[in-house]
């Protein structure tokens, strides 16, 4: 036999496994088919199995197998479309074909051609398949029969207050374009609402199995006249009759509900008559099989880039549009341009939303690795854990998912290492031996909230203060005025964390500063709630997506920058007199906090001169973690939705800058990174650090 020599042994293996699977399925299903000819799903399944074998055998070059399955497929297609009724003849022929298929598969295993002649089998299958020829003439005479899923669809449409219409129309009997006209009608109707069923079906129309009449069940908000106008807009369409179907007329009597008991008769007489064609949810079932597609992440990123480009152009178009409209208020063409551009903007918005959706990945992709890890860790340390995860179906942008894995892992590890006590310690403390660790993800408005909660020993904030004092990270005055809730946050101070490992005082905090930085970088936040002896809860808040953020445009020393709105606490104008100095550093009072201020150009190293303060200074107060800092800028411009783009590997990490974006004039503006800016401000001025740590 002639088999494709390019196929590797592995590929043959895959082919055989797949074929075997499908044959087993067919073996079962074809027999069932005789009794369950109304089972739409079963018919679909059988059809798909044959279709799959046809495709894969064609690919490996097994011509006889693909020829045979092609004949089976054609017949099965007619059966699932109700162009043919199931009969014992048909079932016999299909089973016969299946046996031949098994023999052909054996050929592949033995690599030896059998003397099996498939020609008569194929001929018989074809003969049975063409028995439907007479059908189309009967289609019109025949009534549109609705399947259960159609009826379901109608019910749903009615609950949405949609109208249901039964539409009959046709083209002249000498028309050469019937199929095309009908397709146009369905398309027009598709724009107005939904085509629930039609005779001939969309598939039949596509295959040009039409005569000159078309019958459609349609749901939509449009009124009769609108529907009629739309249909009549198609060339060659003759008279259109539209019947408004009421709920009773559908579910009461006038439309026959399938499967009717007398509908399916498998005896031969009925068969010869080729029963009433039924319209059913073929298109639906078909599309369900094709509902998910695997896409290369690169393609997705590319799409995202293209959409980002559009988003940038969108701002540009809208700006130009506004200018033009203002200038030529009464010009019709300009007005039309305005409308068109509004429409395009709307579409781009939708496109953007949809692409964002496509990029969403359930958090289970990282959660799923945790149980094993937790189990191993707990075992190693002799701890007994009841680990539970909730909300793993919560979706997040792919890029966030990638970057949140390590911080979460770190928190989880900390919980098991330091948070949860050993069983004997727990018993002594009057707790159950089994410690509970609970990880939960959920969506809250525009954020994803991930909480990690344990019933371990909690964080000793008093000791945390003590250590920070000893290490000179805070002053005694700071410590005295610090509440327990504030003191917990000391865990995030870089200097503290590294020492934790050796002294193990509070038992927490290894690398917590890194966890916080990572989360900050994603535009998120982390908070801790702890009760000594009872347990600890970490609350991580993340944005749904990082690719597009709201930003505030500002200018400093002639350059435009963007500060993500998420980091902006507030903007204010500060009079010269309200600026005080502490240790030669400018600060302002903002309610109960003392906020250091500095010229942005100075932080960024664009100027070494001291910040020039004028009578009135524009200050943007940014928030980095718990810290507040004021940036003196030259001017505030608009807020804008901006697309975050990386600066690229060539430049590497640039301090104070998290990325760039393209403004509506095509120029590049840098996006400021609040947390690293705050760090840059602190550098060389420990006093400020203390001030900020307090507030």
């Amino acid at each position, binding site marked *: 036999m002639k088999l494709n020599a390019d196929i590797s042994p592995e590929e043959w293996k895959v082919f055989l496994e797949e074929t075997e699977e499908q044959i087993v399925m067919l073996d079962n299903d074809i027999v069932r088919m005789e009794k369950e000819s109304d089972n739409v799903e079963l018919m679909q399944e059988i059809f798909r199995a044959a279709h799959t074998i046809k495709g894969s055998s064609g690919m490996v070059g097994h011509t006889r197998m693909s020829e045979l399955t092609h004949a089976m497929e054609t017949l099965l297609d007619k059966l699932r479309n109700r162009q043919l009724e199931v009969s014992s003849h048909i079932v016999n022929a299909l089973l016969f074909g299946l046996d031949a298929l098994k023999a052909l598969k054996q050929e592949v295993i033995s690599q030896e051609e059998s003397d099996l002649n498939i020609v008569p089998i194929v001929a018989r299958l074809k003969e049975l398949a063409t028995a439907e020829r007479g059908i189309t003439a009967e289609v019109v005479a025949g009534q549109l029969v609705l399947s259960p899923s159609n009826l379901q669809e109608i019910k749903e449409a009615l609950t949405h207050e949609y109208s249901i219409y039964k539409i009959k129309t046709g083209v002249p009997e000498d028309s050469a374009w019937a199929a095309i006209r009908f397709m146009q009608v369905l398309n027009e109707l598709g724009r107005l609402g939904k085509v629930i069923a039609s005779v001939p079906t969309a598939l039949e129309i596509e295959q040009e199995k039409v005569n000159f009449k078309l019958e459609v069940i349609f749901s939509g908000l449009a009124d009769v006249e609108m529907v009629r106008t739309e249909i009549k807009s198609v060339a060659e369409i003759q008279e259109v009759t539209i019947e408004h179907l009421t709920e009773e007329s559908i579910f009461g009597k006038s439309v026959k509900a399938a499967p009717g008991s007398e509908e399916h008769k498998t005896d031969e007489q009925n068969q010869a008559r080729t029963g009433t064609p039924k319209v059913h949810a073929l298109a639906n079932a078909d599309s369900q099989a094709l509902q998910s597609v695997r896409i290369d992440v690169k393609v997705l990123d590319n799409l995202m880039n293209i959409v*980002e480009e559009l988003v940038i152009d969108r701002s540009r178009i809208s700006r130009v549009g506004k200018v033009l409209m203002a200038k030529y208020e009464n010009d019709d063409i300009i007005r039309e341009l305005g409308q068109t551009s509004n429409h395009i903007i709307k579409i781009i918005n939708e496109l953007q939303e949809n692409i964002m959706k496509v990029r969403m990945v359930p958090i289970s992709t990282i959660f799923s690795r945790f149980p094993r890890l937790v189990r191993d860790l707990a075992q190693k340390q002799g701890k007994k854990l009841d680990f539970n995860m909730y909300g793993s179906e919560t979706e997040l942008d792919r890029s966030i998912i990638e970057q949140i894995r390590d911080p979460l892992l770190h928190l989880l590890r900390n919980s098991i290492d330091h948070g949860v006590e050993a069983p004997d310690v727990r018993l002594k403390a009057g707790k159950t031996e089994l410690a509970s660790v609970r990880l939960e993800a959920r969506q809250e408005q525009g954020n994803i909230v991930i909480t990690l909660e344990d019933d371990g020993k909690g964080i000793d904030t008093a000791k945390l203060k003590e250590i920070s004092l000893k290490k000179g990270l805070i002053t005694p005055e700071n410590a005295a005025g610090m509440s327990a809730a504030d003191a917990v946050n000391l865990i995030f101070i870089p200097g503290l964390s590294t020492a934790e490992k050796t002294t193990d005082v509070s038992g927490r905090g290894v690398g917590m500063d890194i966890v916080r930085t990572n989360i900050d970088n994603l535009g998120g936040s982390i908070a801790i709630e702890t009760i000594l002896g009872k347990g600890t809860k970490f609350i991580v808040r993340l944005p749904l997506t990082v690719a597009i953020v709201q930003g505030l445009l500002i200018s400093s020393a002639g350059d435009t920058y963007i500060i993500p709105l998420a980091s902006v606490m507030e903007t204010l104008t500060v009079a010269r007199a309200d600026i005080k100095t502490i240790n030669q550093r400018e600060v302002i009072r903002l309610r109960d906090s003392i906020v250091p201020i500095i010229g942005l150009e100075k932080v960024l190293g664009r100027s070494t001169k001291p910040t020039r303060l004028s009578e009135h200074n524009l200050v943007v107060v940014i928030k980095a973690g718990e810290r507040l800092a004021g940036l003196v800028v030259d001017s505030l411009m608009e807020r804008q939705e901006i697309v975050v783009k990386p600066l*690229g590997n060539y*430049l*590497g990490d640039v301090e104070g800058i998290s990325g*760039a974006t393209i403004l509506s004039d095509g120029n*590049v503006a*840098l996006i400021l990174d609040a947390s690293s800016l705050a760090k840059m401000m602190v550098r060389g001025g420990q006093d400020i650090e203390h001030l900020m740590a307090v507030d």
Partner: protein
Amino acid sequence: MAQNNNAQGEMQLVVFDLASEFYGVDIGDVREIMRMQNVTRVPGTPAFMEGVINLRGKIVPVVDLRKRLELKVKAQTKESRIVVVDIGGKDVGVIVDGVTEVLRIPLGSVEPPSQMVANSDSGYLRGIAKLKDKLVILLDLSKVLATMGYESISGLKPEEFEIGNVIENVKNKMPVLAGV
């Protein structure tokens, strides 16, 4: 680096002009030649980093090649161009005084750098093409830009790089070339 050589032993170069010298880079490495446009400065980067530009929606870093090669700094003119090259899969723009032409030169006309300088640590010099009317310094831009570590250039000392001196050297040692 892509060698755009054909059967006759030729290579195709994009020739640009920088401080009155002609430099050539393999056409296979050149992505695009652009007119000067607004370059956004990036704080905290070396002086030769001119900034970043928008290349059809992508953020592309731009290096001032005069500064990078430690040649005399000159104001940009109408002739100034940004040559965007592919450096190990990343796009980087270099500012040059002007792009002269695209040339096809026989490989035979190229003097390899090893014959010109004894201690040739200058990997970025691929050689010098001796043509009828001019000399073209063949530059391996990927090396010029990579010498400063294109993974991340922050923290690099400018004095570590001295191609300007190297070229001077080459000319001094080869009176034939210097005389042209």
